[in-house]
């Protein structure tokens, strides 16, 4: 009975293991085959030892290393969550309000597509000028701006694909624009919504690190330069590994929720 299910789980597990192996091999290959001093370049083994294995002769223990990096990671994730939440809520609210009026939508849709293609993170200095250096607002604005415009374009697109017949049905039974939106367009836009959320996860992390680095000086982003200046390359590589791993897990978590919800709603699974 569970045979196909077990097979599917087994296959995705095998893919995950294979991917991990490929990524670690690539990492090791970059370290081994490029002409970089081992003082600067750290391989997977060294990062693992740094975080989990205490060398009796070393000056600091693995637990101490973890104690340095854990609070920074938590701080960065909080910053990323702030940007992600603000950006997604703003994108959904804007998209819904735009969709209620067709005229507004016709004006906004090209603009959203246009704004999506401006690399807004690259002008973080402008945002910091507006919000002030080191403020929580700068983190929220930089993080949410990375999330907002791609998500807005995607959600608008999803809402605009609502089935005409269903919309007509709502209208025939006396429903207004709002009823059409909540009963037809929003459920129909779920695949786009999930795709937007999934793709926004790494974006929010990038935005948070950038904000921390250029503005607040806290978290992983704020400490990259310090690690560099103090030649703490173990910390540097370990923080890249931790952030990548956490982001990857979050990304796959959203994908899992997406697959379950869409499957329950009887919608075909969207492509990557």
């Amino acid at each position, binding site marked *: 009975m569970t045979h196909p299910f077990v097979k599917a789980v087994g296959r995705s597990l095998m*893919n995950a293991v294979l991917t991990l192996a490929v990524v670690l091999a690539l990492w090791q290959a970059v370290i081994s085959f490029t002409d970089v001093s081992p003082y600067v370049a750290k391989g997977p083994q060294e990062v693992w030892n740094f975080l989990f294995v205490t060398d009796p002769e070393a000056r600091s223990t693995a637990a101490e290393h973890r104690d340095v990096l854990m609070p920074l990671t938590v701080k960065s994730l909080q910053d990323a969550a702030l940007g992600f939440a603000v950006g997604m809520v703003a994108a959904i609210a804007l998209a819904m309000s735009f969709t209620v009026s067709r005229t507004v939508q016709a004006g906004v849709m090209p603009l959203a597509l246009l704004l999506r293609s401006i690399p807004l993170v690259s002008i973080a*200095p402008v945002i910091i000028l507006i919000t002030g250096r080191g403020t929580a607002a700068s983190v929220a604005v930089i993080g949410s701006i990375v999330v907002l415009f791609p998500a807005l374009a995607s959600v608008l697109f999803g809402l605009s694909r609502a089935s005409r017949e269903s919309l007509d049905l709502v209208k025939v039974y006396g429903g207004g624009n709002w009823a059409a939106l909540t009963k037809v367009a929003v459920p129909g836009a779920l695949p786009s919504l999930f795709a937007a959320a999934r793709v926004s996860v790494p974006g929010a992390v990038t935005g948070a690190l950038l904000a921390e680095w250029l503005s607040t000086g806290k978290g992983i982003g704020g400490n*990259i330069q310090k690690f560099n200046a103090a030649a703490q390359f173990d910390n540097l590589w370990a923080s*890249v590994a931790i952030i990548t791993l956490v982001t990857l897990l979050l990304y796959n978590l959203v994908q899992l929720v997406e697959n379950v919800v869409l499957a329950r709603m009887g919608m075909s699974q969207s*492509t990557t």
Partner: protein
Amino acid sequence: MIAQGRVPGWLAGIIGAVGIVLLWWLFSATAFTPDEGTDFTPVPSPWSVFGRLADDGLSAYWPSFEVTLTEAGYGFLWGNGLALLIAATVLVVPRLEPVVVQVAVVSYCLPMVAVGGISIVILGGATQPGDPSKTAIFLAALACFFTTVVGALLGFRAADKASLDVIRVFGGGRFTQLRKVRLVAALPAILNALQIAVPTAFLGAVLGEYMGATDRSVGITLIRLQGNLDSERVWVVFLLCAVIALVGYGVVGLVARFVTPWVSGREA
């Protein structure tokens, strides 16, 4: 979407642009009042920014943009080239597809800022003032890798089954299938991915420049101007960045339309 009397796209775009400038103006006029004794405001009015641009002239900004555009260009070529190559392995070994996707996702989850920190130590920046920064090139390549892999895979899957069968029936092998059907079917998705890669490559280049080790570039110019509280010029550079990203995006879009004229009614 099929509303009657719909505003044509270009007109809506112009209305949108005018709307944005008006919003900006309102924002600059109302949101901030300069502190006593200074005339610093983080959001200068559109007129003062355009006036500043007219006074300085484009040539004052070109040297920085020249470097950044070079970096973005190299990064674009490297990132998309590798992405297409890796996506193409799926054509040879279809079973690799999930792994290729996951590796691309891992590359997408890499924290650009932290990777930049490593890259600035390993690859370094510009060797001489005016040279492109290697870190910026690397980050530009990294930034556009994921979307192109996904776009190309999507394209390779788009091949029409019946057309593939026709080729097989007429005695064509896998290579003929690839050449005559798969690549043609994949073109729209690949070109779409390349279009999105233009602004992201630019973004990656600017992020790489924030890492330092360049003397002349958009990123370092922005940081310097911000340090000097020269908000008018910061806004000028920001606007030029936006214009360049949009022009690049538009040009690739036009090329795509020219190369694949059978794709019509696409929203872009």
